[in-house]
C-alpha cells in the first residue's frame, strides 16, 4: 500500500512548491518639493529633470499594471506644504477638482490629456490620465506658493500616508491576499542633510510599521550625495532596494530592472544593493548624526549633548541631577605613574 501511495503524495508535494501568483499593490511616494528639483536642475544645467522622472514613472506604473491583471497602484506626492494622493483621487478632493475642471476645461483637454493616447489600454489610461491631471493642479498650486511660504520636505509624511493606504487596501481586499510594496522617489541635494535628519524619528516609525505589515520599501534617490543614511536604513530593515542615480537619463531602464522586483520574487532574485549601510542615528536636539551619545532612559531618544534644563526634550522626564553632574564632570587626566588605578579613583 505504501509503495503505491508514495508516488501519489509526492506528486502533490511538487505541485504545491510552485509559487502561486498573487496580485500586488505598488504605492509610489514621490518627493516633488520644487526647491530640491530646481537646485538639481541648476546643478545639471538642464531644465525639467522632474518631468523625466514623471515620464519614466508613468511607464513604470503601466508596467506594474501589466505584470498581473489585478495589480494595483497608488501615487502619493510629497510637496512643499504636505502630501496629496495623485492616484486614486482622494474622495474629498474629487469634488473640488471637478469644479476646477469646469474652469480650465478647455486648457486641460488641449494640452495635458493630449499626452495620453486615446487608444491606450483602458486601465493604463485611467491611471495615467488621473495622474497627469492631478499633477497639473498640484503644480499650479505650488506656483502660487513660491516665495510665500517656507518649503520643507514632507517625505516622511508621504511614507506614513503610503503605509496607511497600503494597510487599508490589504485589509479591504484580504480575499485576494494582496502583497504590497512602497517605492520612494526623492531628489537629493547637498544642503538638505539637516532637513532629512529631523525626519529621523518619523522615518524610524515608518520602518517599524513597514516591517510589521511585511511591506518592503524601495528608495530611488536622484542626484545629491550618494549615501542617504536614513533611507538606506529603511531599505535595509524592510528588505527593500536602495538605488542612487546621478542623472535622470535612462531612468526607465533603472526602474524596469532594479525596481521591478515584485514582492513574490524577492525570495529568489538577488537584490541590486550595495554592501554597507550606515546604521548611525541622529541627535534629537542638534540633528547631528552621532556614533556615541546619550540616551534618555525613559523614551530612548538619542542626544549628542546634555539638554538644557535637565529635561528630556522628547518626553519631558527629569533627569537625576547626580547623574547629570557625573556626566558633566570633566575627565580626569591622571598622571602616568598612577595609570593602572585611575579607573577606581575617578569613580
Amino acid at each position, binding site marked *: *500500500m505504501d509503495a*503505491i*501511495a508514495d508516488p*501519489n*503524495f509526492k506528486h*502533490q508535494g511538487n*505541485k*504545491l*512548491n*510552485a*509559487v*502561486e*501568483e498573487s*496580485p500586488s499593490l505598488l504605492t509610489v511616494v514621490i518627493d516633488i518639493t520644487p526647491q530640491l528639483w530646481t537646485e538639481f536642475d541648476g546643478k545639471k544645467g538642464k531644465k525639467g529633470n522632474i518631468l523625466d522622472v514623471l515620464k519614466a514613472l508613468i*511607464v513604470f506604473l*503601466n*508596467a506594474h499594471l*501589466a*505584470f*498581473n*491583471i*489585478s495589480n*494595483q497602484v497608488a501615487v502619493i506626492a510629497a510637496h512643499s506644504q504636505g502630501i496629496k494622493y495623485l492616484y*486614486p*483621487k482622494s*474622495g474629498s478632493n474629487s469634488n473640488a477638482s471637478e469644479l476646477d475642471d469646469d474652469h480650465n476645461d478647455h486648457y486641460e483637454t488641449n494640452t495635458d490629456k493630449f499626452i*495620453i*493616447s486615446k*487608444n*491606450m*489600454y*483602458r*486601465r*493604463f*489610461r*485611467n491611471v*495615467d490620465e488621473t495622474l497627469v491631471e492631478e499633477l497639473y493642479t498640484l503644480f499650479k498650486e505650488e506656483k502660487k506658493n513660491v516665495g510665500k511660504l517656507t518649503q520643507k520636505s514632507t517625505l516622511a509624511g508621504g511614507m506614513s500616508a503610503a503605509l496607511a493606504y497600503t494597510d487599508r*487596501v490589504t485589509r*479591504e*481586499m*484580504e*480575499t*485576494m*491576499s494582496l502583497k504590497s510594496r512602497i517605492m520612494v522617489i526623492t531628489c537629493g541635494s547637498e544642503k538638505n542633510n539637516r532637513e532629512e535628519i529631523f525626519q529621523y524619528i518619523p522615518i524610524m516609525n515608518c520602518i517599524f510599521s513597514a516591517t510589521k505589515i511585511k511591506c518592503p520599501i524601495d528608495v530611488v534617490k536622484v542626484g545629491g550625495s550618494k549615501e542617504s543614511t536614513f533611507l538606506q536604513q529603511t531599505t535595509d530593515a524592510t528588505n527593500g532596494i536602495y538605488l542612487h542615480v546621478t542623472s535622470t537619463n535612462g531612468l*526607465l*531602464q533603472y526602474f*524596469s*530592472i532594479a525596481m*521591478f*522586483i*515584485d514582492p*513574490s*520574487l524577492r*525570495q*529568489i*532574485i*538577488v537584490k541590486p544593493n550595495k554592501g554597507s549601510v550606515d546604521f548611525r542615528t541622529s541627535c534629537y536636539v542638534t540633528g547631528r548624526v552621532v556614533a556615541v551619545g546619550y540616551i534618555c532612559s525613559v523614551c530612548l531618544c538619542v542626544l549628542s549633548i546634555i539638554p538644557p534644563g535637565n529635561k528630556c526634550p522628547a518626553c519631558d522626564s527629569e533627569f537625576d541631577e547626580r547623574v547629570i553632574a557625573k556626566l558633566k564632570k570633566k575627565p580626569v587626566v591622571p598622571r602616568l605613574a598612577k595609570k593602572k588605578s585611575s579607573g577606581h579613583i575617578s569613580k
Partner: protein
Amino acid sequence: MSSDLLKHSVNQYLEELPQPVQTRLYESPATCLAIYRLLPELAKYFMMSMVFNENFILLRDLDRWVKPNGKIQFQEAIKSLKSLHLIIPKKNDTGALMIGLNPTFRESFKNALTGGEVRNSFGIVIENNSISMDILNEYSSSKWETILHFMVGTPIAKIPSANVLNLLKSSGLMEETETTAEFKITNEGFQFLLQEANAQIWTLLLQYLKMAESFQMDPVDILNFIFMLGSLEVGKAYSTKELSDTQKNMLKDMRDYGLIFQKNSEASVFYPTNLSIVLTSDNKNAVRSAAGALDSVVQKNKDDSGNVDANTMLNDEVGLQGQKTPEGAVIVETNFKLYSYSNSPLQIAILSLFLHLKTRFANMVTGQITRESIRTALTNGITAEQIIAYLETHAHPQMRRLAEENLMKKLELDPNSKDTLQILPPTVVDQIRLWQLELDRVICYDGSLYSDFESSTEYNLLSKYAQDIGVLLWRDDKKRKFFVSKEGNSQVLDYAKRKLNKK
C-alpha cells in the same frame, strides 16, 4: 492551482503554433500584453528588464540574478520564453550565449506600455453609449448558466444554441446517446464543471480555435479578438467597424457564450461582459463562477435598495468591482461537514457531484463528505485532486485567513519550515486522497516475464543485470521468474544474447 493549469493549457496552445503565426500574433499590442500576463512571474521580470534594453544580454548574467533556491523557476522561465520564441539566442565573439527579445514583440509591447502606436488593438470606445452593468451581468450569467445547467442536466434548463451544443460535443464534454439523441455528460464534462470560470471559458475557446481552423478561419484573427476582449472595459460600447470579417463572424458565437452583448445582430457596437474580462485574468476572485456572478447581481440589487456601503464606493474609486466576499463560499470542518453559502441551483448541483447533501436553508446548504459520495464522484471520472482544488478555490475567506495566520505562526517559530498553506483541514484532504487510492489497488505495467531458466546462475545473471539498470519490477527467486518493464526489455534481451551465446 487550477489557474496554473489554465495558463498551462493556453500557453501550450500558443507554443504549438508555428513561428510565423506567433510572429504575426505579436504584431498586436493587446495580444502581447495578454501573452505577457500568461508567462511565469520570473519570465515576466526578465522580459521587463529587456524591453527597454536594445542590446543582447548574457544568459549567464540572468542566471546570476537568481539566487540558488530559484533555479527551478529560472529554468521554467527560460523554457517558456524560448518555446514562445520571445527570446532569440545568439552567440557572442567569445562563444558565450546571449539572448535578446523578439523585435516584433518588443515593439508592440513597448507600444502597449507607453500608449504609442496601438492600432486599435484595445478596441474603439464609442462614448455616450453606455449600458447598465446589471443588464450585462444578468445577460452574461444567464447565457453561461444555461450552458452549465444544460451540462448538469437541470430539468428547468433552456437548451443552448446549436453552435454551443456542437462545441460541447466536439470537445468531448458531452456526448450524444445513439438511441435517443439526447446529450449526456462525459467524465471530462464532470471535470469541466469543477473548474473555475476562466478555465471553463478557455477550454471552450481553445476547442473553438481548433474547430475554426478546420473552417479556414485565421487563428491570428481569432486570438487577437479573444485577447482584445480580455482588455476591454465592462460597461463601455465598442465599435465593430475595425474588426476583420473573421472577427465579425465571431461576434455571434461570442454572444452565445455570454462573452459579449449586442442589442441586435446588426448593431454596430458590442459590449464586453464581465465574463470576457476573466479571459486574461487568473484572478480567481474576480469572478468565481457564473453562479457567483448571478448571486452577486441579486446581492447588488439588495445593496442598492438599502444603503451603499463604503466598501463598494471605494472599490469603484480604485476601479474594481466584485471584490466583496464571494457568494458560494464553502466551509469545510474537520468532521467532514461542509457548509456552502449559496442558494444557486448550479452551485448546489455541482456540490452534489461529490457531496451527500443534508439540509437546505434560505442562504446555505449543508452536507457531509462521505466515502460513498466521494466514490460516486471518482467513478464519474472526477479525481480527488479536482475535488480538493475546487474546495480550496471556493473556500470561505475566513478559512483562508485562518490558514494564513497559522502558517505565519509556524514560520515565526521555524523560518525554515517547509509547510505550505493548508486551507482545508489536512484530515479531510488526506482522506479524500486515500479514498481515491482505494480504487487504485492494482497498477498495470506493460512488460515481459522471464521464466524457465536453465540454471540459477543464468537466472541470477539476468535478474541482477535487470535490477542494476533499474527495469526490474518483480522477481521470485524460488520460482526463478522475474518481470521487466517494457522500456527495459530490449536491453535485457541484448544482454542475454551477448552473455548466453558466449557460453
